[in-house]
């Protein structure tokens, strides 16, 4: 494991984040459960900036999970939507803010830019198409 979620949030870039919508603002509290105690992190989002502090104040959205779950998220090892569906995350409040966490925490490491596949194909090292399952919209058996 690379960093813990606590380390990740401590070192969070305080600068402008152009990938956040300028019209979105709100507060999130992350409750890290474990070892008989809960740590609270408080994210204030607004004007394309994110500020991370330690506070147990009430927030627009409260997300709680095991500390290790947050650690996996901080390393791009856990998909937020899957964690919500599998009930690894519990949420209370304005669920719209949850999607912002997907931009605050990193994506999976080693992800490729689509152009890598395009360049490889053109260079003659054609990417394989594979014949496994498909995720078409109207999936039929």
């Amino acid at each position, binding site marked *: 494991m690379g960093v813990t979620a606590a380390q990740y949030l401590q070192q969070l870039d305080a600068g402008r984040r152009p990938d956040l919508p300028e019209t979105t603002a709100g507060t999130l509290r992350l409750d890290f459960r474990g070892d008989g105690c809960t740590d609270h992190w408080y994210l204030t989002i607004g004007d394309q900036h994110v500020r991370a502090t330690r506070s147990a104040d009430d927030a627009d959205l409260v997300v709680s999970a095991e500390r290790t779950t947050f650690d996996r998220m901080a390393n791009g090892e856990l998909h937020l939507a899957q964690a919500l569906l599998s009930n690894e995350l519990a949420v209370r409040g304005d669920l719209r803010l949850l999607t912002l966490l997907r931009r605050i925490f990193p994506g999976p490491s080693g992800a490729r830019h*689509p152009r890598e596949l395009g360049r490889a194909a053109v260079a003659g090292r054609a990417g394989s198409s594979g014949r496994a399952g498909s*995720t078409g919209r109207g999936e039929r*058996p």
Partner: protein
Amino acid sequence: MRQELVHVIAGNVFAISDAQGDIELDPHAPVGLFAFDTRFLSHWVLTIDGERINALSRDDMTYFETRFFLVPGAASHYVDADVSIIRHRSVHDCFHEKITVLNHASQPAEFTVRMEMASDFADIVEVGQLRERAVQIAVDPAANRLVLRYERERFARETTVQSTAPVEVDEGGMTFRIHLAPGGTWETDLHVSLTIQGEAGQDLRAGLQSHQQAVRGTMREDLADWLDRAPHLVAERGGLEETYRGSLADLAALRYQPLASSERVPIGGLPWAMALCGRDSIITCLQTMAFTPELAPATLRTLALLQGGQLDDEHDEEPGKILAQLRYGESAAFGERPTALYYGAADTTPLFVVLLDEYERWSGDADLVRELRHPARMALDWIDEYGDLTGDGYVRYQRRNERGGAINQCWKDSADAIVDARGRQPAFPRATCELQGYAYDAKRRGARLAREFWGDPAYADRLEREAAALKDRFNRDFWLPQQEHYALALDPYGEPVDALSSNIGHLLWSGIVADDRAEAVAEHLVGSRLFSGWGVRTFATGQRGYDPVGAHLGGVWPSDNALIAAGLRHYRFDVQAARIAAGIFDLAQTLGGAVPEVIAGYDRSVTKYPVQLPSAGRPQSWSSGALLMLLGTTLGLRPTGDDLLVNPAVPGGFGRLELLDIPGRWGHSDAYARDRTASPHRPRAK
């Protein structure tokens, strides 16, 4: 031959049973009670004195409510007229069935009424390859209750069945021993609540009450209001008004409220796509703009919220990309399929921008355009940064999730849909032609939004330059001068995939077709190789891959045809557009009921009847939407400034058409038309 299936729907909660109202496991069909992609009942069979019952008739009251009128015994037997049974079923966020037993005899009677109950908690995407799950069953006789529960780690799903009448409960169901006076009646309410763990627990009786109130009050009122808000159609042609109202009701049925939203958005359709599918939702909104415009802002906001933010191979996600599919089932929760948030679609992102602009043109809702500036800008940036895989300026796709990603990431999403005239599949990444049309349209529309609402004229100029260059390049690289049509796609090396396909009709809709080539395209679309008599085939006859029962290699899709007819009218091919509209109206009215997503591509002159494909779902939001869009195209509805322009092109034999109270930035406006063959009078517009 499979027996008729009966459904009740409330967004992504739905039940499919046989004509008796019974549910029995079918390994290949999604029969059962489903919610949020999970089956909560896989067995639900009613018997009386140990005997199965048989339907005499049925009243499909609304999309969410059905009554079955039944008697004991198989249809071939003597029907015992002394007892009859009514099952009155409805669905909301839970499921409810009132069972009434009537004794018609002059003697008292005793019966044993039993409902067998079970659930396999299958994820709907597993149907066809079902697996066993350990289901815990809790019998609670004191509360007249049976609880079925499935758990995997913290993931849990629970079905609770409760009866209002006293009942014997066992692990396989509930048994009622009833005594009826002469002419007497007995009834019970079976309430089935569906629990997704993680939600706040709710008292079941409160759920029961709120469900009955919801169905009796809110849902009926909601449907009445929905139909009321839509324009009123007066049509001389018999049956068209009913088909129109049926399509509106189908669209009402296929709305659901995502967890993070306060508004309802269209889902794909029954049975396989009862989930948010970006493409289907956007196309449906575009189709229904003149009729049910409230779908568009809800869809735009939802898709903006779920817009891609990261590079993620598993989910084929890139920053700015618009969602392909969102599911809540077990396979999504545990990452066995990438569908918790799946982005494998190359068309949804440009179409998102097209929808935002189109919605503003109709509604005048400038605030929404400003609110969604950031996601729209990210979508426009996606086209060049992530959509263009080989750097030649065309939008392409190639899945990075080779285990479960979509092979073809365009509307023709079956694995073998993209082939050349000799049936050969091109290499990846593929640039299908309609994607280029969408990208062109998105840039032009994005330019208008940037200039008029975002105060960014320099960006608007840039987008317009890029759009013009794309159109030039496209007309050079995709045009096949010998065949006089556009190629279906380019392979990664820039070689055309030379098949003749319906995709060229989308090019007219997007406006990327050079004026001097439009006529050749239009003639192909209504020529005998593409046009079946009912509509335009996905893939033309006379090519190696053509298959009349292949969904994307010969089948006829109403949704595809609606965009094509609109495209033909953009280029003033009114006669051709009217032919297609007439064919699809005939198709819908001949079949009756909800418009199917696809029919076979056989020649109409051969089959005389639209041949349905077993895999074709209905209702489907973009098929019901297609019917509305074709009406709008027939009337030639178009917003110009603050007014609604009406410029009809009515198919022969349709007579008079009136569409009253069309909502938009003009308030409400009416459109009147008359087919020109029927009368010497000119159509008039108001």
